């Protein structure tokens, strides 16, 4: 352990000595991974309780959306472009991964720009990009929609499931009963785009500390120390720890792109339900890029898997070990719920790194 890290840990032990139990929610899936991978929960004083939030985009995608994308993939002329994590998510009957092994045209992409390039080079086929992610990824989609619009590309579509982080945090704070979150570790790269201002309400309206953190163990520990300092001084604010990347006003140009292409609307979060104004919906002038509308896909009413408690886990009410399926019927090889599917899902992270530590 390097000196800087042990120094921060000492400071955390010292400052937390007089404090009661503090529940800190890390909103971002990459933070969850960094915490479990580096054993931070074990290193910290037991009164610092780190709980994982709804910050893994794959995990909050409804199985109805997965079924809709699978339906789109059944048309031979359609090519689905997806980030890797989406493929294993179980819909009600099958997954995109299984569909691909049966011969459906499902391609993995590193950059969404690959999907648009493919559409331009293959005008006879329909390219559908699964536009998933929070504010970090939404401007990428916005740029591509603008580019496709300007160049009159008629065979490029998105299956749009972009979501926004601050409305989900507000939803958790408003519905807070059993989870009792005292502070938030906020997502560094979402804030690289949004800046810290959209997170100010957490401190201003709810008097909860919130620190925008980087992704190294040192960053996370320092952010936790900053949170504890705010608690001790009773001065909650939206502070930036990840200063070399996050500016108070974010990336104004990226935000402008999002606002040109999208407007906010309601969105369904798997395991949580509908959250008003938490979704990004394509504006009317761009509606022809909306795969769901263009191909007239209708939502099916599909229940969540029985016994799965992913919803409670994503709201910080329960931990994976409290689930009857965890590690038994639900494993990364055969996931039942969404939190086990994505490598950044809370259950997958706990399965990989924490199962032998309890």
């Amino acid at each position: 352990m390097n000196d800087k890290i042990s120094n921060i840990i000492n400071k955390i032990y010292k400052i937390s000595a007089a404090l009661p139990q503090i529940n800190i929610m890390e909103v971002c899936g990459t933070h969850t991974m960094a915490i479990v991978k580096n054993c931070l929960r074990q290193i910290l004083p037991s009164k610092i309780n780190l709980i994982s939030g709804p910050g893994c985009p794959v995990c909050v995608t409804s199985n109805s959306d997965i079924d809709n994308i699978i339906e789109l993939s059944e048309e031979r002329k359609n090519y689905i472009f997806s980030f890797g994590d989406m493929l294993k998510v179980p819909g009600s009957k099958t997954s995109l991964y299984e569909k691909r092994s049966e011969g459906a045209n499902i391609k993995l992409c590193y950059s969404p720009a690959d999907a648009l390039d493919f559409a331009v080079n293959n005008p006879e086929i329909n390219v559908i990009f699964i536009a998933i992610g929070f504010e970090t990824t939404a401007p990428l989609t916005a740029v591509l929609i603008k580019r496709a619009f300007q160049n009159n590309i008629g065979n490029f579509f998105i299956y749009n499931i972009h979501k926004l982080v601050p409305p989900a945090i507000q939803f958790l704070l408003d519905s807070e009963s059993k989870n009792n979150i005292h502070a938030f570790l906020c997502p560094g790269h979402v804030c690289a785009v949004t800046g810290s201002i959209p997170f100010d309400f957490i401190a201003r309206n709810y008097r909860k500390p919130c620190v925008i953190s980087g992704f190294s163990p040192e960053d996370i520990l320092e952010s936790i120390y900053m949170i504890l300092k705010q608690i001790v001084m009773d001065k909650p604010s939206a502070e930036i720890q990840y200063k070399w990347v996050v500016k108070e006003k974010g990336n104004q140009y990226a935000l402008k792109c999002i606002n040109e292409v999208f407007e906010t609307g309601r969105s369904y979060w798997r395991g949580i339900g509908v959250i008003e104004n938490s979704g990004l919906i394509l504006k009317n002038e761009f509606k022809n890029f909306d795969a769901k509308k263009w191909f007239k896909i209708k939502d099916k009413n599909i229940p969540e898997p029985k016994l799965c408690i992913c919803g409670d886990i994503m709201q910080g009410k329960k931990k994976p070990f409290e689930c009857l399926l965890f590690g038994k019927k639900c494993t990364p090889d055969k996931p039942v719920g969404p939190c086990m599917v994505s490598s950044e899902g809370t259950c997958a992270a706990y399965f990989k790194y924490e199962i032998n530590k309890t």
Partner: protein
Amino acid sequence: MCVAVPAKIITISDNSAQIESMGVGKKIDISLVPEVCAGDYVIVHAGFAIQIVDSEEAQKILELFENYE
């Protein structure tokens, strides 16, 4: 997945740039950072630069990664 490794902009051509990070070269899209210049450091997400970052700190972090065995 958020990858917090900075990359240096080497050359720019329209919407795209050649970057270098820890000895690896790659072409990325720079549409979201219109003011970026060669020599700047950026954070890349899914093939797009999403923010220009503090050069000094970026160099320190890259050095740390390079010395990490």
